[in-house]
């Protein structure tokens, strides 16, 4: 390859411009073709092993195109693993997921979770709401997300989901970069007990205290927020949870950490 460039370099002045351009274009095509073919060759790696996942969740788990299949890339590994187990053990319900994970071992599910957690990909800018939403709704959602509602004993989302709402290692997911449809469906599923987490299920206790309008407001606000520059989950919770709050899926939140 370098020989070819040397050749080009030496003879550049003698070759008409058009021929040079043609050669470059041809070379680029050749490159593109081999790259494409390489994408098709079989590799004994996790990308190959998770084809069944990425068919819906997008290439490298960067989210599906239809606004329902959430992003997997870069989410905390513990969170992803817990979700796979939740599908397997009937705390979350989606036939396609359940049938896929059913025959797999814990070790393999964990390997898959770690694989997607370690894929650091840039986020696309947040999609603005398709229908016009009132400022009032957005303000209400923002208040719930960042301040909570002490009158109903509802903590702010950012108490547990990271100051920047990008999640906390290793078990709490970020709330940004998710499509509105997905957020609405999940909060709705928690409301109707279709989605559960390991007991004590803190999300269930929180959703129980909220009305449907509150859930829509907070989902709408979250879905319109851009990801901060550093999208990685926080390493630990800013202040350990005080009793009686405890989360079965993320017991470390209640512990004072060094």
């Amino acid at each position, binding site marked *: 390859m370098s020989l070819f460039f040397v050749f080009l370099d030496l003879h550049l002045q003698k070759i008409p411009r058009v021929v040079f351009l043609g050669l470059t274009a041809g070379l680029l095509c050749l490159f593109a073709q081999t790259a494409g073919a390489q994408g*098709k060759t*079989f590799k004994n790696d996790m990308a190959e092993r998770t084809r069944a996942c990425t068919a819906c969740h997008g290439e490298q788990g960067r989210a599906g195109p239809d606004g329902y299949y959430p992003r997997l890339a870069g989410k905390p590994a513990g969170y992803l693993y817990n979700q796979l187990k939740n599908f*397997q053990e009937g705390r979350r319900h989606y036939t396609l997921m359940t049938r896929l994970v059913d*025959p797999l071992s814990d070790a*393999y599910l964990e390997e898959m979770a770690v694989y997607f957690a370690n894929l650091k990909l840039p986020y696309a800018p947040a999609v603005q709401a398709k229908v016009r939403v009132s400022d009032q709704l957005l303000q209400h959602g923002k208040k719930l997300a960042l301040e909570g509602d002490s009158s109903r004993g509802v903590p702010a989302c950012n108490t547990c989901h990271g100051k920047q709402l990008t999640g906390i290692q290793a078990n709490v997911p970020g709330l940004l970069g998710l499509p509105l449809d997905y957020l609405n469906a999940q909060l709705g599923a928690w409301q109707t007990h279709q989605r559960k987490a390991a007991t004590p299920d803190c999300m269930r206790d929180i959703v129980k205290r909220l009305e449907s309008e509150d859930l829509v407001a907070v989902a709408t606000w979250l879905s319109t927020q851009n990801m901060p520059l550093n999208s990685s989950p926080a390493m630990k919770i800013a202040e350990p949870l005080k009793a009686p709050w405890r989360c079965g899926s993320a017991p470390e939140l209640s512990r004072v950490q060094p």
Partner: protein
Amino acid sequence: MMFPTHFWRYFAILWLAILGLLGAAILVDNHQDIWTSTTPTRSTDLHQQEQAAKGQQLLSLGNCISCHTDRGAAMGAGGRAFETPFGKVYSSNITPNSEHGLGTWDTQDFWRALHHGKSKDGRLLTPVFPYQHTTLITREDSDALFAALKNLPAAANAKPIPKPSETLDWPYGTPVAIAVWRSLFFKPGTYVSEARQSPEWNRGAYIAQGLAHCAACHSERNAWGALTAINDFSGGLLPVLNWYAPSLTSAHETGLANQSVADIARFLKSGQSAQAIASGPMAEVVQHSTQHWLDADLSAVATYLKDMATQQARVALKTPAESEKKSKASPSSKVVSLGSKIYEQHCEQCHQRQGQGIAGAYPALANNRAILLNDPTNLVQAVLYGGYPAATQLNPRPYGMPPYILELDDREIAAVLTHLRTQWGNQAAEVTPLQVNRIRALQGH
């Protein structure tokens, strides 16, 4: 013509007498174990710990825990729903919990459940519990199983498990219906060794016909949901679940006669072979049961099944007419071009241009028996839902197939399946969109 009144009276009495006798006969038939004391005495020659360890192995041979555990619930605590054409049946709690489980049972009660299909209180069990098969289990093995179950953590059920009488359609859950069924189709039995065969063959037959209850899926059930024989492995469609369990004796379906004993054993242990992948309910069986079997047992079952298939092949040679009938497809050019387009878009990357697959990762479709089965149910299931083979010690990180239920419609699935069944030397009947539609509808999507 008129008959005098007393004639009708005698007529009625005659019928009542016949019905009464029939009823009494069924009653006697179902409860004769109470007065015929043929129960072998319990064995005491094994040390308790050894016995429990042996029982643990037997539990995996029978895949007991898998059916007696609900999703996400305590091991052995029951409550898993089984849908049948007659309604639902929930498995029972077999942990040593004294209120919900077998805590108050003794080895005699347990033996009676396995051998006679009766609960401790004498209630007749529904044949969803495969006592047509478990009746073959020896008293010694029954005691070992019970010892292993005693070692499970005792688990209570948060909600009471519904009784079959509440969940089966009337009248199937009534004691009378179950008694009649048992009189027609169930006879307590023991495994009788075939002297002509090796001990290994006999061990395999004892496991396959009894504890492992292979024929519960691998044979057709009649209109009453009963099996004609526990050593009939001629294949059958699982009702409600909607998977076809292929014939274990047919050369076209599983071809065990032409495989080595080691290969058959390896398939049961790993869930995958160069020839086939265990999917659907069989993946579950491999995951929870066969991958944990001792090599000697795997080899015994493989020896027995291979021999059954070989015997069948000899019978088939004498009467070749029906089994050799091959259906050839002649799909329209529209179907052909749609099928090859879909194949190129969605399948070729893994299964390759010539359907040769990638060894160890993606199965070959060319000359693959699963592709050529008359009944396309499993193929439609695979395309709709995709799936992974069971993760086993021999195949801990399997490759998977994505679901296509949201991407392909009935017409497209039918065309691509027809493509697979008619390419690369494959010769099987065309799959129609109507067939795909019916299978999809049975899945509730």
